[in-house]
């Protein structure tokens, strides 16, 4: 088996340059690549375009990259949890593309699957449709949307093996598997890294073919955004 292992997050992100396009898995703060975000913070790069469903919170996740002014543009579906984001956006320091969540997911999936464009009903008749081809199929209107691909995709999984096969846990899966396939180079950080052969192939969510680098992360905080308890 091809061995995809790198030592740690620093090594995994070492060649990520300024002004490139990154995808980052996660929904809210669940399933985000905490180790790689920390390692990126140590680098002197800027001008990043980040595709991620959300933009973290002020002091965690992508919010940390925003605070250090490393991000030029966010491509997201919902960014409402971050005051620094709002400040930069209103001051014109940050660009944002807001995309319906299902369209965002399908654009990423299409990118990884080699489908350059597709038609979706989401956004027909709204400002999302501005400048896009609208076509009727079987009596209903659809918008043409393009694929999304990135220079690097950074994902977080529960378990992985040295061949890059990944297994996710709970709703921390979210955008991670589709982003793995849509990056020219996919970096996977996992809570537990095992030798190839130890994961049951029947249980693998993301086949190792999509993953170029893998390492076992450390010190996962897994911060909870809204801790809601049954009364």
């Amino acid at each position, binding site marked *: 088996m091809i061995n995809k292992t790198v030592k740690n997050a620093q090594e995994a992100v070492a060649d990520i340059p300024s002004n490139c396009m990154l995808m980052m898995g996660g929904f809210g703060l669940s399933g985000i690549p905490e180790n790689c975000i920390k390692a990126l913070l140590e680098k002197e790069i800027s001008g990043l375009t980040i595709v991620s469903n959300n933009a973290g919170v002020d002091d965690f996740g992508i919010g940390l990259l925003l605070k250090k002014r490393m991000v030029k543009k966010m491509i997201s579906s919902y960014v409402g949890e971050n005051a620094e984001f709002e400040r930069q956006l209103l001051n014109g320091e940050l660009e944002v593309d807001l995309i319906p969540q299902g369209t965002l997911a399908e654009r*990423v999936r299409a990118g990884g699957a080699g489908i350059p464009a597709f038609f979706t009903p989401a956004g027909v008749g709204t400002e*999302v449709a501005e400048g896009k081809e609208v076509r009727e199929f079987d009596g209903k209107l659809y918008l043409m949307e393009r694929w999304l691909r990135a220079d690097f995709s950074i994902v977080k999984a529960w378990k992985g093996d040295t061949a890059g096969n990944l297994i996710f846990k709970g*709703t921390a899966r979210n955008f991670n598997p589709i982003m793995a396939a849509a990056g020219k180079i996919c970096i996977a950080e996992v809570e537990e890294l095992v030798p190839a052969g130890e994961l049951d192939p029947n249980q693998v969510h993301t086949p190792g073919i999509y993953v170029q680098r893998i390492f076992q992360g450390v010190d996962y905080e897994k911060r909870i*955004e*809204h801790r809601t308890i049954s009364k």
Partner: protein
Amino acid sequence: MLTKEQIAQRIAKEVKNGQYINLGIGIPTLVANYIPKHLDVVLQSENGLLGIGPFPTEDQVDPDLINAGKQTITMVPGSAIFNSAESFAMIRGGHVHLTILGAMEVSENGDIANWKIPGKMVKGMGGAMDLVASAKNIIVAMQHCSKDGQSKLLPECSLPITGIKCVKKIVSDLAVLEIAPEGGFILKERAPGVSVEEIKSKTAGKLIIYGEIPEMTFD
């Protein structure tokens, strides 16, 4: 006038056995508390789960298990987890039977606006545009009027819209209304103590009234 809980309670009466349902954030989330126990339904969370259970106890909390509102949740037996593309594939593919969501405005032809207020910070549409473009049945939970008394049931939406001609039914704090196929709000039920006249005066769009309008009942 209905409280938020009563709006949720009234909407829960629309739920049918065997349905897969997506509940939006806010009042729609409360609907789960009122779905009759004898119905077998499955709640979908667009971040990738079929089978949302109750909120966890302290020792059940799992940061890897949240709903689309980023709240901690549990799973019911028989749940399934999937990625975001698959989640919206089942939504756009028409496999989710019922979508319940909030709205800032609804027009008499069923357009909905619920994602953006010009001049205010825009947070994004999340999954709302995909949901309203695809669901077979969309029920909206909303306040009938804004805080300064302006009707939110309009001839046309004034805010940027989320989807066109998609809303089927509205449960507001004043009434239950259906969107007529040819346009207009058909008044079906009044909130307890609310008169038809009051609903008329607070509905800016075309209101259609057939015969006597019953008062809502709560079990």
